[in-house]
């Protein structure tokens, strides 16, 4: 075995019209190493990985694979060398079974030309899955598997291609804590077999839990690459944003809890939430923690009328309201910023102004005619107020960064001046700088008397931002905590049902 690193990308530069996406980036990956690649959105991570995957050609620089210079023209070239990418959005076909997915396009041929030897295919698939210690039936359709297992099927596919280096882009963004732990065990097992992994994530705790080294990109340059042991999360954040981040979780003024704005009593929906009772005060940020699938999103959707409740009452400012559809919730003064902003929060092909004003059109228009001048003025105000970075109001939302897209969704609801704002995973996939801005905005709104219900899987966020925390498990509220005294472990044990789930903060 040579002493060369497995991968050495050297002096990589790439520019697009008007942007220098990468300049002189150096990156090495040793055999059997887990390298975390971190950086804010737009720092150049995906460009670098696309170059490694043969999607883009670099303007200058070289890729050395086992010390040999290589030129990659397509993902296929990369695959042949042993480089596999696992994207955030999985590339599996849901209606095909596991075995067919793993060997898609490379099915072992049967005795007649053009036929497939199915028994061989499933036997090989079984073997690949065993290698990873996975107890998955290769004949099961992929859509029935939990996300974490789907991810492992992707890994099995990569290994069946003899991958020596696997790039994982935000692999945990839709996994539960337990699934993340399973994934980590398997990544460590890969490392033990000499496979290298480039791990891209926004979640620093994970980076510190799994990686051997951390490479930080900022504005297209490598600002540092060090063993995790020599770094602290604070140092990494500072390297990523290039400035002292006084505090990401900046508390607003001490919560001056106002009147109860939203009172929910014994709210239930078949198969989703059971007997949920809580109150939300004006000016309060109420955090809702829990594992994925605990019923948090379902609670938000029930309050917002996406799926109406089967029993229980919802009161707004003391008045009982019936909410069967989102339109009714909106009229009552409730707004929901959904978990998946691209699929459920944005009109990606429409421009910034239209996206912001969409919910307000009905109120602005006379006889159905849109007063465009007024629309532009309102949209302009919100772009300024929320500091949405866009070249113009006519820019398509698709072209904005994740943080700015999220601000557009929030702005849309603010045009209606809601009394209750529900935010489901408001900072998912958003870089640290934009996160801080979203938190500041939430505190501002709370300061103006809006009641905020924030669902989040990130416990530091829950504890750092909320005035009060509810924990859900299996569709029920199982605990209430004061974030000033509660720890992540308290929330976790309530969420998982281990240990006592006390209502300490009352």
């Amino acid at each position: 075995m040579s002493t060369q690193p497995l991968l050495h990308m050297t002096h990589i530069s790439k520019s697009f019209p008007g942007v220098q996406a990468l300049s002189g980036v150096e990156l090495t990956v040793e055999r059997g190493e887990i390298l975390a690649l971190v950086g804010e959105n737009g720092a150049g991570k995906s460009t670098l990985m696309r170059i490694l995957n043969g999607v883009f050609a670099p303007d200058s620089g070289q890729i050395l694979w086992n010390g040999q210079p290589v030129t990659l023209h397509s993902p296929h070239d990369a695959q042949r060398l042993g480089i596999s990418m696992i994207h955030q959005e999985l590339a599996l076909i849901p209606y095909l079974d596991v075995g067919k997915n793993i060997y898609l396009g490379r099915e072992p041929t049967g005795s007649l030309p053009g036929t497939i030897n199915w028994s061989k295919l499933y036997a090989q698939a079984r073997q690949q899955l065993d290698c990873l210690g996975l107890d998955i039936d290769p004949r099961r359709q992929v859509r029935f598997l939990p996300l974490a297992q789907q991810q492992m099927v992707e890994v099995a596919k990569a290994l069946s291609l003899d991958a020596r280096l696997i790039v994982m882009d935000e692999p945990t963004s839709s996994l539960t804590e337990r699934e993340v732990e399973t994934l980590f065990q398997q990544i460590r097992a890969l490392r033990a077999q000499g496979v290298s992994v480039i791990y891209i994530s926004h979640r620093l705790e994970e980076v510190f839990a799994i990686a051997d080294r951390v490479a930080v990109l900022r504005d297209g340059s490598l600002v540092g690459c060090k063993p995790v042991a020599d770094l602290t999360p604070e140092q990494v954040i500072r390297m990523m944003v290039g400035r002292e981040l006084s505090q990401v979780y900046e508390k607003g003024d001490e919560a001056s809890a106002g009147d109860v704005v939203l009172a929910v009593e014994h709210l239930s929906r078949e198969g989703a939430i059971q007997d949920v009772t809580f109150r939300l005060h004006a000016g309060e940020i109420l955090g809702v923690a829990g594992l994925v699938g605990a019923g948090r999103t379902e609670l938000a959707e029930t309050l917002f009328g996406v799926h109406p409740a089967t029993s229980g009452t919802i009161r707004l400012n003391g008045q009982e309201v019936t909410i069967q559809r989102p339109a009714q919730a909106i009229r009552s003064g409730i707004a929901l910023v959904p978990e998946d902003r691209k699929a459920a929060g944005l009109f990606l092909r429409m421009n910034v102004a239209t996206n912001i004003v969409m919910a307000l059109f009905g109120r602005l228009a006379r006889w159905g005619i849109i007063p465009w001048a007024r629309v532009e003025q309102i949209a302009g105000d919100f772009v300024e107020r929320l500091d949405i970075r866009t070249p113009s109001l006519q820019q398509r939302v698709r072209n904005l960064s994740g943080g700015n897209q999220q601000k557009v969704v929030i702005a849309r609801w603010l045009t209606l001046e809601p009394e209750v704002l529900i935010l489901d995973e408001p900072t998912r996939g958003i870089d640290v700088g934009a996160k801080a801005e979203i938190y500041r905005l939430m505190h501002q709104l709370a300061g103006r008397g809006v009641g905020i219900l924030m669902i989040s899987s990130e416990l530091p966020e829950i504890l750092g931002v909320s005035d009060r925390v509810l924990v859900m498990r299996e569709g029920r509220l199982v605990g209430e905590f004061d974030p000033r005294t509660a720890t992540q472990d308290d929330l976790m044990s309530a969420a998982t049902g281990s240990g006592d789930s006390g209502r300490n903060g009352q």
Partner: protein
Amino acid sequence: MTTATAARERGFEWRPFFQRYGLLLSFGLLCLFLTLASDRFLTGDNLLNILRQSAINGIISVGMMMVILTRGIDLSVGSVLALATVVAADGLRWGWAPLPALALCLAIGGALGLINGLLVSRVRIPPFIATLGMMTLARGLALSYTEGQPITGLGEGFRQIGTGYLGPIPMPIIVAGLVFLGGYVLFNHTTLGRYIFALGDNERTAFLTGLPVKQITMFVYAASGALAALAGTILIARLNSAQPSAGEGFEFDAIAAVVVGGTSFEGGEGTLLGTLIGVLIIAVLNNGLNLLDVPSFYQSVVKGAVIALALLLHRAIR
């Protein structure tokens, strides 16, 4: 470095240029070619003729575009046209005045379209299937209603919509022009227009934003049916006869015009100007092929090839 970047940027500006004007350019080239190939093409009479011939497809295409913008399709326009016009023609034969007959025709078209809309939005039948069913059903009803016979003798007053003039301009062009004007206002200046685009862009977001998704869907199908019926009145007025077999294949001309005009089948994207040019391209093509004495069997081949080419070009410059 700076000059290199600048050069690349200048090179890149071709793309938005073609995205914007590519269609207009192709249309211009087509006209230029025909002007050179036939001295009968660029004459006032011929151009007016092209516009008049494109009026029917133009009117249907505006409705089709609304439907396609919401990720739908309306295969029933030809049959709806036939059913609405034979019933209206029957009314005229029984001595109805032109305006009530016209209103009846539009109402039938709108009602049939509304049924499409209900099937798509409430029963959640895929648009292709729902309107395919309506296509067969309406055709069958038109044939049963007339027992397969054409209805003739519509009266001079009614025929004005097809044969009359407003000053020097034939009525069909006036009607189509009004439809496009209405479409322009709807798309660019009304909430409903923005909602149609929003629904096609992302139905889930539209629902979660509180937009009346079902009503919007019903509107676009009803509008498509009513516009098909309106186009039908021009057709029967010109022929002085309503045929139960009228309008066969009209859905394809309309879909072709809309798609050549750059409206995306993925919904939420398209311009009315594009659709107008799409309609004109198809009309000019028909006209040109006749002027050049291309045998009718080959005309289809050329038309198909041109449509495929236009879509390829659209793909390439996107």
